[in-house]
């Protein structure tokens, strides 16, 4: 027996529970943390509503439609943060040398970082996102929600969370290479969610391209929302002239390819770390 006989999914659950239990020891703090995330996001959403108190629509998008976009991106990001925080919080561990601990355990490095910091408190952001989607139903311009729309929404949110998660993995890979690159990485993760909170067709062309081809944020919620709302996109928004529905359906493939690239980059970064010992 050269490598341990460990079933990784059950180990993941065990480590995630340990993480939640550790935080629950400070119950008040834990609940305040959820509340804090919730309140902070509420302000963001209220600011959005205040904006729509002044203007009726934003680049052709009504308040309810933007609320749908915003809610989808929040829910996806919340899931990604809950599962991807091990990668997001890697920089200080690399700096302090704690990351070395991972390398002396007989488990895959990716798994250990993935399982190191499950964050249940991100439910605060998720609920906020769900409320925004709920709110969007009150807008007459919004969707007549059918059962199939809920399915589409669920798939879109999960797909979006995979895309954000992969971005966190890339951020972790970055932390292994550049010790003080945290700020730059936050630009992509937190900047990404802000970008994805608004209709992409509001932004200038280079940003649209980057959000489609570099960091596929458009697949998080923009294309799926177009499909759900039955909207027509402005010229040049849709790659290869595909319909929003086709793009929405291809989003899971895009997300998995992106995740695959992130994992390869991660593995190479770990090898590089072992080679250079940043």
């Amino acid at each position, binding site marked *: 027996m050269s490598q341990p006989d460990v079933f990784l999914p059950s180990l993941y659950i065990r480590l995630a529970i340990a993480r939640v239990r550790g935080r629950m020891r400070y119950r008040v703090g834990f609940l305040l943390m959820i509340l804090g995330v919730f309140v902070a996001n509420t302000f963001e959403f209220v600011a959005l509503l205040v904006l729509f108190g002044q203007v009726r629509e934003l680049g052709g998008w009504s308040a309810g439609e933007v609320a749908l976009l915003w809610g989808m991106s929040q829910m996806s990001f919340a899931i990604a943060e809950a599962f991807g925080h091990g990668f997001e919080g890697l920089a200080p561990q690399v700096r302090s040398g704690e990351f070395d601990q991972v390398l002396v355990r007989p488990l895959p490095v990716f798994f250990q970082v993935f399982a190191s910091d499950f964050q249940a408190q991100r439910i605060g952001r998720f609920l906020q996102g769900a409320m925004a989607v709920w709110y969007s139903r009150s807008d007459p311009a919004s969707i007549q929600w059918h059962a199939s729309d809920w399915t589409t929404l669920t798939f879109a949110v999960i797909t979006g969370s995979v895309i954000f998660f992969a971005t966190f993995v890339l951020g972790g890979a970055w932390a292994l290479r550049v*010790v003080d690159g945290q700020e730059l990485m936050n630009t992509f993760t937190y900047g990404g969610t802000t970008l994805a909170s608004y209709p992409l067709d509001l932004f200038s062309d280079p940003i649209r391209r980057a959000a489609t081809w570099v960091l596929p944020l458009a697949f998080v919620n923009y294309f799926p929302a177009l499909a759900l709302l039955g909207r027509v996109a402005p010229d040049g928004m849709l790659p290869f002239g595909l319909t929003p529905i086709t793009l929405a359906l291809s989003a899971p493939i895009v997300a998995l390819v992106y995740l695959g690239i992130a994992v390869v980059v991660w593995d190479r970064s770990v090898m590089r770390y072992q080679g250079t010992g940043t």
Partner: protein
Amino acid sequence: MIVAEELKKSFRVTTRRTGGFSAFRALLPGSTSQVEAVRSVSFSIKAGEMVAVLGPNGAGKSTTIKMLTGILVPDSGTATTLGLVPWKSRRSVANRIGVVFGQRTQLWWDLPLSDSLDLVRHMYGVPAQRFAENLATCRELLDLDSFLDRPVRQLSLGQRMRGDLAAALIHDPEILFLDEPTIGLDLVAKARIRDALTHLNQSRGVTVLLTTHDLADVARLCQRVLLIDHGRVVHDGGLEALRTQFGSGCTLVVDLADPSASDKAQSPGAPETEERSVGPLVVPGAIETRSEGNRRWLAFDRREVSASDLIASVASRYPLSDLSLEEPDIETVIAGLYASRTE
């Protein structure tokens, strides 16, 4: 068990940039310099040995351990741990070794120690039966019972270190790598860790490789010392041999019989005038380094002049009432070595 052959490792050190856009500027070239952490380290350790790695900060001790445990890949040279190349078979090696970094913990900060040990058990896939046995051994050996149910963040440093050691023992490692296991501990806590290590080594045959700055650790635990300096092994052998190799500088302390005897007599009075009465002693092969009343300290190198020759020549020139020979202790020898590094 452990073989290192001409291990070499250098780091690119980035000069830290401050101010705006530091994250972007860190990407620019020209801000790095090469530091040779390990230049050429070779040694081999047999099963059941207990070896201390000594050396000043930055000598390459930790880097060497990191290569032997598979954390880092060397630039050149090779090594095997348990017959495997650690950075190629990282997971297989990790499954058979235990590693403790004294400055960090692998325990879950917010959870009771017992929960941490249970999680470690599942990470190594240790069967319940064996875990129960090993835990019982650890509880007795490291006296864990009084704090097993307390969250790790509430433990004292000594308790936490015992907890970390227990966590490293859950999967029955054949080798223990310990990087400064007694750093910051009080004497009682140090003694506990040492007793536990001695027991593990003697009754279970665990091979131990530890780095330390505490010579008492070495004297108590290790028959063999690897002294690393400037990224090379400069001594490989016993602690006493280290003294004979590097501690050749001795001091002869003499008390002059009568200060007026060897010079023109002056009125006997205050010690200050006595001290002035005899100038620095002039003896071939030795230098006077200190004087206090009638007492003089003569430093000499044993390789150049023997103690008996020196005593004879001092006695022929000056009347002596008493003398003693001071040999350097290990601490002084090592401190001297560390100091010479910066010169």
